[in-house]
């Protein structure tokens, strides 16, 4: 096999993997930046996205419909959870958030089992994305190419949203000094709800994107949440750019690691995290040590 072709396809593979990780990590880091809480339920929202996506495909008959419906429904559920439950806990220490979001993970898992059953559900990808293309004579799944592109598009959209919109400005300001934003006339409670909803919606859309490759299953949440924590810790808690770099780094290590050293692929990810934490305890772009 041509080495160049191998390199290009593996890089594209890693990019598509990074896109999935980014959907998760970006939401988690945004939520942490605003609220200083770790949303342990983030993987469960990812899983919920996959299941809601499956139902949306079932109802609308269209994968694209699922891509629109899932983030709205999952994000709306996240925002409602913030307003109903989390909001009462601000001012307490971090443990209560960890307990509550962990409890939510268990309840969401059980609820999904009751609603959708225990069997893994196959989400059918649209016809137009299901084939393969040849890249330098090397076959490559179109869906993975699509995923890499979607990751780039979403990253640009979020970046522009944060930089150019009023809500984006308020989100950045709130992450720097919430009390001051409140004193300047913005109800920061609404900013928190919005960010929690957006973060969960991103996890939800990630779930839809992942579903055609891995099927919607109850094992999605724990796997996802661990990878997500690793990228957010690598990139620096609360840093948007950091979550992007963390996702790329972890994806490339996973893809190339599992090719060259299949037995150690998982260890590599933690080794990188360890190294970065030793050199920069706050993560690559994090502020807090």
């Amino acid at each position: 096999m041509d080495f160049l072709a191998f390199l290009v396809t593996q890089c594209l593979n890693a990019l598509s993997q990074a896109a999935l990780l980014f959907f998760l990590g970006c939401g988690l880091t945004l939520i942490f930046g605003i609220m200083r809480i770790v949303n342990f339920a983030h993987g469960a929202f990812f899983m919920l996205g996959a299941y809601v996506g499956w139902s949306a495909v079932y109802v609308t008959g269209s994968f694209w419909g699922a891509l629109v419906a899932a983030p709205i429904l999952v994000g709306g559920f996240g925002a409602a959870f913030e307003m109903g439950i989390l909001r009462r806990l601000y001012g307490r220490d971090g443990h209560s958030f960890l307990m509550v979001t962990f409890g939510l993970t268990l309840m969401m898992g059980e609820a999904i089992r009751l609603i959708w059953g225990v069997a893994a559900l196959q989400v059918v990808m649209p016809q137009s994305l299901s084939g393969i293309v040849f890249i330098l004579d090397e076959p490559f799944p179109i869906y993975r190419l699509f995923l890499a592109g979607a990751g780039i598009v979403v990253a640009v959209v979020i970046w522009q949203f944060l930089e150019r919109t009023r809500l984006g400005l308020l989100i950045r300001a709130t992450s720097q000094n919430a009390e001051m934003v409140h004193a300047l006339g913005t109800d920061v409670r609404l900013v928190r709800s919005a960010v929690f909803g957006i973060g969960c919606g991103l996890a939800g859309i990630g779930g839809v994107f992942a579903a055609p490759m891995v099927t919607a299953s109850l094992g999605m949440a724990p796997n996802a949440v661990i990878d997500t924590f690793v990228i957010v810790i690598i990139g620096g808690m609360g840093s948007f750019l950091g979550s992007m770099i963390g996702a790329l780094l972890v994806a490339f290590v996973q893809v190339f690691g599992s090719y060259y050293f299949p037995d150690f692929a998982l260890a590599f990810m933690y080794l990188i995290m360890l190294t970065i934490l030793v050199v920069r305890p706050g993560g690559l772009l994090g502020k807090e040590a």
Partner: protein
Amino acid sequence: MLTIEGLNTHYGASHVLQGVDLVVPPGGICALLGRNGVGKSTTLRSVMGLVTPTSGKVLLNGVDIAGWQPHRIARAGVAYVPEGRLIFPDLSVIENIKVAERTPAKQWPLPRLLDLFPSLRERARNRGSNLSGGEQQMLAIARALASDPKVLLLDEPSQGLAPLVVRELARVIQILRDSGVTILLVEQNMKLAEAVASTLHIMVKGRMVYGASPDRFRAEEAEIRARYLTV
């Protein structure tokens, strides 16, 4: 304009404000003096809603705003320049101002703010953390004005500033007074307070103990200083 009546505020078990009374007339500048820890900043934070008073009234044009959420108090027309300025460090100068400008400002639109603070115009694209202390103070005031406030709460604006910058600050406060902004000013710098204030008030242990015009204050200054202000 702003009337504080019998305001009590607690931090846990400590009774910080013990029945504060103060009247800030429209267009007036009330300077609040006193030693460290007597409750000057807590008075401003209570008015702003950043701490919830346990009892008493804060009347803004006759409406009791005590106990309201800070964003509602801000929307009612109170703006706050906190001690230590608390600029958003990673936002640009313009963005810092935009956070406060919820609707296009009528009285203090961005061009007018930049005319008032020429140094901010030069640094419009700089991040807040790259500004000098004086520039940060000007930005904190500009940010507060961007909401077209009726009342401005200024907490120790001269703190840590060089004498030349304090003079610039006095100039700005005088311009604000001439534009009709009502100001409640907490200040340790007696010279600045005397220069700009229409009335001077002194707090001791959570209570108002003295209030007078600058002229009368000057006449009694030596005695007042010894009794209430020097440590």
